[in-house]
């Protein structure tokens, strides 16, 4: 059970075994964050660049910590994709960075397919930290790891993903990941925010959250972005919260041991109420904790050397 790719661009292309290998590796890395000295020298001397074209505190910090705990040298670059900023092309930006002899690139971009575009141009490994509405593989991996840690397995679980599925890369990556690992996924949200053909990714679809909740082992909530209001996907945040928000009343209809997840950041009072977010079923903070471990595992697995000699240990 090995992971032998040279980039991590998405979950869609991964096999069940490859996902399993990453989750297995994560166990060892989770332990490092519990040590007094939270550092191992494995990526010492390697340079990792975090190239973020979209603002992000959470994901970027998580990658940063992962890189530092592996003793890598890291650089954060907050670039701009504003159409009005006539700057360098994406290709030139990446090439310039690579020319500085970097060993790995972690990239987040608002254009779906951008990490793949870069992986084709660059020689170093590329990690997709989120591209447009396409994929966010490390998020899905940490979500799966968190569930496995809490429940002990992934097979046969029923996962519900609730929110703006249309624009969500987290939803897509999780649909791919959980279904490959043997779980069942149902997406739920306003009809205007369900993408056409989502069933072909393996998910069931419903707009009835109340009917869905009692069936779920995992309740994953997505952040609703306020800009969707101005694009007329639903009339108001209040109405959204009314029909699709999860509060203690809705939680009362859920299974006793249902796990509540959210990739963050939370819109308290919109998709989730504070008491649920901070309640006993919530694993939101654990997701953050395991996020660092998962990213350490991914960086480690991608940083392999020559592909010739066998392990001579």
């Amino acid at each position, binding site marked *: 059970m090995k992971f032998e790719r040279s980039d991590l661009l998405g979950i869609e292309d991964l096999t069940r075994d490859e996902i399993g290998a990453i989750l297995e590796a994560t166990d060892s890395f989770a332990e490092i964050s519990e040590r007094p000295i939270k550092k191992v020298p494995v990526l010492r001397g390697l340079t990792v660049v975090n190239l973020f074209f979209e603002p992000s505190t959470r994901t970027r910090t998580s990658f940063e910590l992962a890189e530092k705990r592996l003793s890598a040298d890291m650089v954060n670059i907050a670039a701009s994709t504003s159409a009005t900023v006539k700057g360098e092309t*994406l290709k030139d930006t990446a090439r310039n960075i690579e020319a500085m002899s970097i060993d790995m690139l972690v990239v987040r971009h*608002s*254009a*779906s*397919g951008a990490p793949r575009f870069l992986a084709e141009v660059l020689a170093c490994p590329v990690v997709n930290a989120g591209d447009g509405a396409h*994929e966010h593989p490390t998020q899905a991996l940490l979500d799966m790891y968190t569930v496995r840690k809490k429940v002990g397995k992934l097979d046969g679980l029923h996962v519900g993903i609730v929110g703006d599925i249309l624009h969500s890369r987290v939803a897509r990556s999780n649909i791919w990941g959980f279904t490959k690992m043997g779980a069942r996924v149902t997406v739920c949200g306003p009809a205007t925010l369900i993408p056409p053909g989502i069933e072909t990714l393996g998910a069931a679809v419903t707009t009835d959250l109340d009917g869905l909740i009692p069936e779920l082992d995992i309740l994953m909530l997505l952040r609703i972005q306020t800009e969707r209001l101005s694009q007329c996907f639903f009339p108001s945040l209040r109405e959204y919260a009314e029909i699709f928000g999860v509060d203690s009343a809705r939680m009362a209809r859920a299974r006793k041991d249902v796990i509540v997840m959210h990739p963050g950041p939370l819109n308290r009072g919109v998709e989730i109420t504070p008491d649920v977010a901070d309640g006993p079923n919530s694993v939101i903070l654990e997701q953050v904790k395991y996020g660092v471990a998962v990213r350490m595992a991914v960086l480690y697995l991608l940083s392999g050397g020559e592909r010739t000699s066998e392990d001579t240990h």
Partner: protein
Amino acid sequence: MKILIKGGRVIDPSQDLDGAADLLLDGGAIAALGPDAAAAGTADTVIEARGLVVAPGLIDMHVHLREPGREDEETIASGTRAAVAGGFTAVASMPNTEPVTEGEEGVKFVVAKACDAALARVHPIAAVTAGLRGEMLAEIGAAAAAGAVGLSDDGSPIANSGLARRALEYARMLDRPVISHSEDPGLVGRGVMNEGRVSTRLGLRGIPNESEDVAVARDIALARLARARLHVAHISTARSLELVAEAKRLGAAVTCEATPHHFALTDEAVASYGTNTKMKPPLRAEPDVAALRHALRTGQVDAIASDHAPHSQEEKDQEFDVAPFGIIGLETSLGLALTELYHKQVITLVDLVRLMSTNPALILGLRSGTLRPGAPADVTIFDPGRDWTVDPAAFLSISRNTPFSGWQLKGKAVTVIVDGRILLRDGEITV
């Protein structure tokens, strides 16, 4: 100079002709056609056409030549060279140049430049609205007088229905067709590819079929109201095809054209995020492509036109979201039509000539598109069985943005004669 084309299979739908015949050209006109053509006078040049198809010069009625303004992408000279290499004797050039080709001045520029530098004939299409801004009418009367054969805001729809109606009425007065880029901007939004399973999987914003269906329905309704001639450009959906067919049944003067990429590729081609699969209208899903091929078979589509849209390498070499829409097509159009339609038994060679010569000439009111004696000596001789591989590096166009690189095609132009001058001989440009 007299040119005799011997032994070919002459296909001329305008005369219901399909059979072995000889063709004699005298100077810039067709002199004689038929078994006695050889007897009509000694020829200076004899072209052996045995095993080949001899057709009235092919006309690509939807081409972007990028001059003035983007000569780095294409010029009238390079674009018409590419056209001849592709088997065309004439192209109709779209007005979304910089500055926009509108009014007397814009059209005269194109006409003069073409006179000077073009290999194939260039028939200018002028803008409908000033600056293509969709706010006010451009001086289309003056444009028509200066030589514009059609009117279009191609690249954009005319969003304001009231203005679109006025444009159609005015165009009727000038007896010019309005060529519509039918799309509803609100439904297109910031979409970059066809909306469907593939766009969902790739996380790219989608352009639903209905953005075209709704606009075609509107354009047809307005054309009927204005009693004007409407030509729907690059038709791509099953429903649009139905609407056009219905309009014809109701007696409206509506025609439509399809591009080779819309009958050769589906939206699955976008899976690798290659920007040479990004154009408008987008590549559609399988059912629409099947409907288009069916419509081509049953004669519901009037013309094949490439929508040749050159773009520089740097501009296309970007993320999918940001890369400009459009691909080139002059040098692959005939090959794709023969490979994907003729050799797959979707259409006959007679249909093909009608789609690529006869009808475009009728729609644009050109004297070519026929081999009747007295017509201009524009002839395309092609070999329907010639095997070749698409190699963009060998293209005569300045640009290279094609998704067909490496495709094995069957059928190619061999000889092209424009105005009695042999410009392409045995597949090579002679000038």
